[in-house]
């Protein structure tokens, strides 16, 4: 498939504007920028499958590092059963072969190293002192952030080496599986909470409060390894807020994850406008 070719859908129903929109952005905005474009060419692979039948789907509902609200896990579990009935091969236990907790720690530390360019000298000195004050094995978000903001480039390189090995573990994983489904966050939209610093805030999950930053686990599980991830609406919480599913694919498997979202849109949950916005 050429990059400028429209994706043909083997379905009789007309494609909704929403799914069309989801398919178009990579076509329009993907591709190397000017300097690199002299030599690098993108030719994204077509979707691995056009239907659920035969698709190999790994599902992860939850992780000890980030508890997920039952409103999401319940719906995700129901989706997994539905996919099985549709003829997909579904595993609730298949995982990439690396230490997910270490991957999360590297993600937060290297993310906060990557955003440290915005800090001034005094802020970096502050975070260096905080990092020195806290135990080296402190895996709280605050400690990881302090280490990241003051990270030496040498340590960034060492972390990057581990990250690149984890990327290879993901590449091996996606030889066995076509998509990896997981929550995009710990809960549905949180109530406004502008008090204090980000790392001090909590969110209610399954009736108790957990740090909001825990759910960065679900952000990092895909983006730290440079993988594509599409989100599709999964349903609604009892209080009527939307929740979605994160559909992770192999590197450059963007068309596969978007096609999966299209199939969900058709047979599971399409976009519903919020009430009162007609």
């Amino acid at each position, binding site marked *: 498939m050429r990059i400028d070719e429209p994706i043909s859908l083997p379905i009789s129903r007309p494609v909704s504007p929403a799914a069309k929109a989801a398919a178009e952005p990579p076509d329009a905005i993907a591709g190397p920028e000017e*300097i690199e474009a*002299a*030599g*690098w*060419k993108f030719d994204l692979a077509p979707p691995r499958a056009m239907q659920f039948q035969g698709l190999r789907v790994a599902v992860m509902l939850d992780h000890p590092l980030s508890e997920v609200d039952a409103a999401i896990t319940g719906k995700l579990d129901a989706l997994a059963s539905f996919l099985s009935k549709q003829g997909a091969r579904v595993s609730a236990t298949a995982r990439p072969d690396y230490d997910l907790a270490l991957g999360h720690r590297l993600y937060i530390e290297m993310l906060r190293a990557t955003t440290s360019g915005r*800090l001034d000298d005094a802020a970096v000195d502050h975070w260096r002192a905080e990092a020195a004050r806290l135990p080296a094995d402190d895996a709280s978000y605050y400690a990881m952030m302090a280490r990241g903001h003051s990270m030496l*480039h*040498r340590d960034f390189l060492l972390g990057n080496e581990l990250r*690149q090995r984890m*990327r290879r573990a993901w590449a091996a994983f996606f030889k066995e599986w076509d998509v990896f489904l997981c929550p995009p966050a710990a809960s549905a939209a949180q109530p406004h909470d502008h008090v204090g610093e980000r790392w001090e805030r909590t969110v209610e999950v399954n009736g108790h409060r957990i740090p909001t930053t825990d759910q960065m686990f679900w952000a990092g599980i895909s983006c730290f390894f440079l993988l594509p991830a599409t989100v599709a609406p999964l349903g609604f919480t009892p209080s009527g807020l939307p929740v979605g599913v994160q559909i992770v694919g192999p590197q450059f498997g963007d068309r596969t994850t978007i096609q999966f979202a299209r199939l969900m849109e058709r047979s599971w949950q399409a976009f519903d406008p919020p009430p009162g916005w007609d």
Partner: protein
Amino acid sequence: MNPTFLPAWRLAELTSSGEIGCLELLDHYIARVERLNGRINAVVVRDLDRARQRARTLDSSGRNKGALFGVPMTVKESFDLAGFPTTWGHEDRKPHRAETDALAVQRLEQIGAVVFGKTNVPVSLADWQSYNPVYGSTNNPWHHAHTPGGSSGGGAAACAAGFGGLELGSDIGGSIRVPAHYCGLFGHKPTWALCPPRGHWMVNTAAVTDISVIGPLARSARDLALALDVIAVPDPMDSDLAISLPPPRAKRWSDLRVAVWSHEPGHETDSETVALIDDLARHLETEGATVSRTARPEFDATEAFRLYITLLDAALSGRLSEDVLDRKREKKAQLRSDDMSSDAIFVRATDLTHREWLRLNERRHQIRRIWTAFFRQWDVLLCPVIATAALPHMQEGNPWERTHTVNGRTIAYNDMLFWPGITCAFHLPASVAPIGLSQAGLPIGVQIVGPMHGDRTTIAVAGMLEQSWRAFVPPPGWD
């Protein structure tokens, strides 16, 4: 016909047509190594049984005759060759045995090359002289009192001495370009990240090192293109991206816009080198090229040089031992703030925060854009490879403590990183072509720099120089 100094593409013609057998050609070069290597100590690992078996297989199969069919060659010691240690000159690495061949070695063999050994390097590949406690010291075949360069120094010496048809090296601070220049060879430092380096390592690594590249050294520019074609393919382990290098911008001088930067105030370059490059510029004018001696990319050359040194130190900092780090920290504490020597900049980069690196990297990308704008006006830039022709052996102390004399002036050894660094820090491709000899009879080359992914252009220009200015000449006494 004596095949010794023929280019690799010509050797492949002879083997493909059956004029020479693959095993016969391999044995010719093995015999030369066995007879003559003692003079220069260039080939330090020999994998003769496997190579002979491979040559026999090529002779008997007679099919799929690739572009390097039956061409015997060596690779830099820093590449994995199955069953042999990859030491990078470190004694404690002697017991190591590589499990598989480096990816680039496999790829060269896929088009018919017969890799029969590995060539000498400096410790940690961190010098323009190739000596170490594992394998000893390598001499320049043009003059034994001089180094063949480094870090791909054993490889350049072997290729110039006629110990094989082609060499594979690596470069982060001139390590392909300087040995090619010191030994009168063609060499190519590819655009960064073009040729996957898997298997060019001391320990198995998945991440790619900033600035560092792998690339060929040869007796003909055409060989550089052949080798590049097969190694400039993404690592299937990493990527579904495709590379598609644009063709050369020009094949005739009259279609080519050439900027010539033969010297730079404050960065001493030997007057013989400058004069040869200026002579070459005049020649290109008479050939019809559009030539400018004043066109420069619009950045401060000294700033770019200092940026390079810091980025180089940062790129290598992940490999440094605690001993080395402690020594650098101690030195950093004693450094005067106005000391802007290359060594001071190196030392100052110790314990660089990632935040500082991001700032420097941003500046690097700004300068990359300035280079891109420059290469809209000019097709190639010709400049020196390094300050002088081959250094005399100087093995005392550490490189950063040494000095070199250029035009009667004393300069710090690492100040010579200027010409290699102002191009490779910005990930640009650069080919080297031999352009003449110094009065002392040592080769001098020119660096042909092109835009990002303009590798075929710089190699094509090296080939045009080979045709119209100077081809490879064997060193005296090596027939």
